[in-house]
């Protein structure tokens, strides 16, 4: 099979001589691998740096392989050194992020599914305008809402809390989740819904019996998209929370920027990997859905 593909691609190049083709082929692979090294290089550097001691880091170069697999920096990054005040480590912030991500993803996905359902299966006059109204929310630069949001969270008494961040991420996720579900449900034949309505099925019954069972792919896309966006958010996290309520990206940034004592690059890199690993795992396990979300909804910075 592989050979077949290979030979047909040679045929595509049939006007050129065989040697030119060979050369082109090698050139192709050379360029592709060159770029692959550019993309993989930082990840490689992060991993090896996190496994070295500071002494090794000073002696070797970025690329030197660590002398032994030493996970000390990971333990320090995750759990600290245990000397109390001033000892910052990621564990509590990691849980903050989990506590923030789970409800925010759930609420925004649920609201998006319902809104997308109404906009496609219970159409009414002017529904495109409602869609456009919601869609525009995907694009606004969040700087234009930071000041009033900070005041609102203060008034509600939930500034600097995980609850506040859940609210913020739910609200600003709605335009995206609505977009995903609306675009998915619009391709579901409306006849199905009409027939069910004639049979006397109501609004919720149609949703749970007809649409929900076929929604698995779009739910996966939406959940992955929202999870990645919210986990990786820094702007909201750093503006609306500080100290103990901060999510992991904010904590990572604070750890790396803290100018106390000697810079420990190995701990920095271990921390960066810990902060990046949940989304990386999702990407590796569900890359197809990740990309689908990206290409249909990637408008947020």
């Amino acid at each position: 099979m592989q050979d077949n593909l290979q030979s047909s691609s040679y045929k595509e190049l049939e006007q050129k001589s065989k040697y030119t083709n060979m050369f082109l082929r090698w050139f192709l692979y050379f360029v592709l691998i060159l770029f692959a090294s550019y993309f993989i290089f930082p990840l490689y550097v992060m991993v090896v740096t996190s496994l070295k001691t500071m002494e090794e880091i000073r002696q070797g170069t970025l690329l030197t392989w660590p002398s032994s697999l030493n996970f000390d920096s990971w333990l320090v990054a995750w759990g600290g050194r245990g000397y109390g005040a001033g000892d910052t480590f990621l564990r509590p912030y990691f849980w903050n992020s989990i506590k923030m991500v789970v409800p925010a993803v759930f609420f925004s996905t649920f609201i998006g599914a319902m809104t997308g359902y109404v906009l496609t299966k219970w159409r009414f006059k002017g529904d495109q305008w409602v869609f456009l109204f919601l869609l525009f929310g995907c694009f606004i630069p969040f700087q234009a809402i930071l000041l009033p949001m900070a005041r609102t969270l203060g008034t509600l008494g939930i500034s600097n809390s995980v609850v506040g961040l859940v609210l913020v991420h739910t609200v600003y996720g709605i335009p995206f989740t609505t977009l995903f579900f609306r675009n998915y449900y619009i391709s579901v034949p409306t006849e199905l819904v009409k027939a069910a309505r004639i049979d006397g099925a109501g609004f919720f019954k149609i949703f749970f019996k007809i649409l929900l069972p076929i929604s698995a792919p779009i739910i996966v896309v939406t959940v992955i998209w929202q999870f990645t966006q919210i986990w990786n958010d820094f702007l909201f996290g750093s503006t609306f929370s500080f100290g103990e309520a901060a999510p992991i990206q904010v904590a990572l940034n604070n750890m790396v920027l803290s100018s106390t004592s000697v810079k420990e690059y190995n701990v920095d890199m271990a921390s960066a990997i810990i902060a990046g690993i949940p989304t990386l795992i999702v990407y590796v396990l569900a890359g197809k859905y990740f990309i689908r979300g990206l290409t249909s909804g990637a408008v947020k910075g």
Partner: protein
Amino acid sequence: MFKWLEKNLPKIVMAPAVGLIGWFVYGFVLWTLYISFTNSKILPKYELWGVGQYVKLWASRKWLISVDNLLIFTALFLIFCIVIGIILAIFLDQKIRAEGVLRTIYLYPMALSFIVTGTAWKWILNPTLGIQKMFIDWGFENFTFDWLVNREMAIYTIVIAGVWQSAGFVMALFLAGLRSVEDEIVKAAKIDGAGLFTVYWKILLPMMRPVFFTSFVILVHISIKSYDLIVALTQGGPGISTTMPALFMTQAAFHKSQVGLSAASAMMMFMAVAAVIIPYLYSELRRENAR
């Protein structure tokens, strides 16, 4: 009563989304717009003050540097992301072995946060132990690479890290675009004697106009909103040499008690995004209606 409820149920279900977006997006943007016309300092004031904040903004050296940086960054970020994205997409489209693995490698940075990316690149680019030392240890004794701490060059480190994060995404868009073209078109061109280069340059790339457009809009949008990457990589430094509008806005709002000025800068960003997005939404909707 029950009848009314049943009839309006869809609208009631949709109300939370519309209400939340109406309040938290449109209401908040209008509030920010209003505040940008007041002389608010540490707290918002509600007496109108005219366009003073905008005059102040465009007279501020820091803001002008921000805008300059944004223009440099956007131009380079766009060019590199699109060129690299297209090259990778076309090359991957040649029935490459291990295409899946390569694609995964090109795209994984999109899964990382800009803070993680910035932290990694900050370490790689640091002049004492990073790339510079690597080359010196390899025997290039006079090799210097101090862009990160060099006022003139620091902005380009943000481009390097930004392109690293986003080029794979453009690749994915173009690859999807190329794969959606009917094989027949390419075959017909080949029967007419067109070489592979001609097929791409004269036929396929011109067909990718919507993909160019989408990439352009998304990349410009990302660059106008760039904030995290700068915070993690340079904090706007050395000095204020890598500051950008998003950083300017948050600093004015939350560190310098210039609420009115920060609102004005936020509105400038809003208008810049709107100038790109509104034509895009318009054309997208027209395309959808034409379908």
